[in-house]
């Protein structure tokens, strides 16, 4: 077995509601080895995003119980002021909307080097590393574009900047929450390719949160299918796609329209009366 990087045990997440806390995740187990790519798959309301955010304790309102072990750090026991030690350094984050996750009044260069600067890396060195990284991510003329602002970049380029911010401090884990949902297919393919290459080069584990079964198939080693705050099924992607054990996984796979499929056959509908 390879070394375990992230171990989540019986994670429960509740948010305050009108009549007391409402539990949205009901006991999740999740393991990631170093360098492993795992997809957390589910539809809206499945709890996939809050689960991923819980790894870095990003939702201050959330009440977490269970255990999250990230590279030897007991995340849930960590005092709030020490959370910075894991954010950025041990785990980086990429969100869905590249425009919303960048500060519009700061240059992209300034934003990329922050994770290094706050850890005491001299600015000159940080700048050089940022330019190298941007170049690696396919940003042409990175040295000149370093001082540009987010609005001067296209959607795909912005997402590369967001990825640069997430990985510049060389975290062992990258959490990517729907990183390509807002992008066109060709840009999506390129961004996923880059993430895959970065993961391989740096032995970085990736936790990919997505609703898209297509990109899971091409990206992840293992998949965890979530529904209503519970794990439905997990395993290597080859197995899940070829022999889904759970009815929900089967229905989900059959609900996706496929090029080359038979258009005269209706797509699978997931039961439970009027679900939509």
């Amino acid at each position, binding site marked *: 077995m390879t070394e375990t990087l992230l171990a989540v045990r019986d994670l429960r997440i509740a948010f305050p509601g009108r009549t007391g806390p409402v539990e949205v995740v009901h006991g999740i187990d999740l393991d990631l080895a170093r360098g492993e790519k795992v997809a957390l798959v589910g539809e809206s309301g499945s709890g996939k995003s809050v689960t991923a955010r819980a790894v870095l304790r990003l939702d201050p309102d959330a009440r977490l119980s269970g255990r999250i072990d990230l590279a030897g750090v007991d995340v849930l026991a960590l005092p709030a002021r020490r959370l910075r030690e894991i954010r950025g350094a041990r785990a980086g984050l990429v969100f869905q909307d590249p425009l919303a996750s960048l500060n519009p009044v700061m240059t992209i260069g300034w934003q990329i080097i922050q994770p290094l600067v706050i850890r005491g890396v001299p600015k000159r060195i940080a700048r050089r590393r940022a330019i190298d990284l941007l170049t690696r991510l396919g940003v042409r003329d990175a040295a000149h574009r370093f001082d540009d602002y987010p609005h001067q970049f296209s*959607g795909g380029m912005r997402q590369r900047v967001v990825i640069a911010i997430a990985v510049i401090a060389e975290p062992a884990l990258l959490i990517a929450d729907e990183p390509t949902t807002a992008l*066109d*297919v*060709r840009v999506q393919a390129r961004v996923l390719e880059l993430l895959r290459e970065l993961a391989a080069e740096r032995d970085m584990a990736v936790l990919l949160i997505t609703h898209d079964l297509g990109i*899971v*198939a091409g990206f992840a080693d293992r998949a965890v299918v979530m529904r209503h705050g519970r794990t439905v099924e997990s395993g290597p992607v080859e197995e899940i796609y070829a022999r889904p054990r759970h009815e929900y996984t089967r229905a*989900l796979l059959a609900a996706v329209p496929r*090029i080359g499929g038979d258009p005269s056959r209706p797509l699978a*509908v997931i039961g439970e009366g009027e*679900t939509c």
Partner: protein
Amino acid sequence: MLTEPLLRVENLVKHFAGRRVLDGISFEVAPGEVLGLVGESGSGKSTTARCVARLTEPDQGRVTLAGRDVLAAGRRELRAIRRDMQMVFQDPYSSLNPRMTVAALIEEPLAVHRLEADRRRRRDRAAELLELVGMSAAHLDRHPRSFSGGQRQRISIARALAVGPRLLICDEPVSSLDVSVQAQVLNLLGDLRRRLGLSILFIAHDLAVVYYLCDRVAVLENGALVEIGTREQVYGSPSHPYTRSLLDAVPVPDPAVERARRSDR
């Protein structure tokens, strides 16, 4: 094509802020046919839909629906044309007036086009339409806010169908929905199309969705139509390099296929 086309679009040109966003778009939709309009963001597919529906005035071009000139129509004639041409929008959360009940939303087109003068009959018709799209008539007095995205999209479809249109323009109607809900709405559109003989102009960025629903496909790049043909032609042997690059980038929900693709690159 032997039959007279229901919709004919000729040489649409539109500029926004000095940029040419539509650069001479032409295509036809036959009665009962579903035409998919695909392209990336900024390709002009939504603008084309809006010009056909005359929500946006193109700078040049002609749109003919069942022999009537859409762009030259006066206010009264346009209203008559709109009985034949309805639209379903992308965002089911913003395309329904939040202050109206489901009944009021579906009855509105019936009242506006004076299709049903009697109030009670209007309500009965609204209930029928709601059931046609697979929802219970018990929902009539609720507001859009209390429905999920998929249900709202069904309500939008019921509303669009109220006037008995021959052409439905769907602008990314499933792109903001979950996979399972998307499947339900796609099934519904396919079903309605068969039952009602509807023509659909279907705008989408997801090529698999378009494959599932459309008889013919038009590919747009930077405001120009680069390829148009039957589903089998466009997906089976795409003639334009842009179409090929799009198809290459579509993720396939099959790990074996994806692995083979990657080793090809």
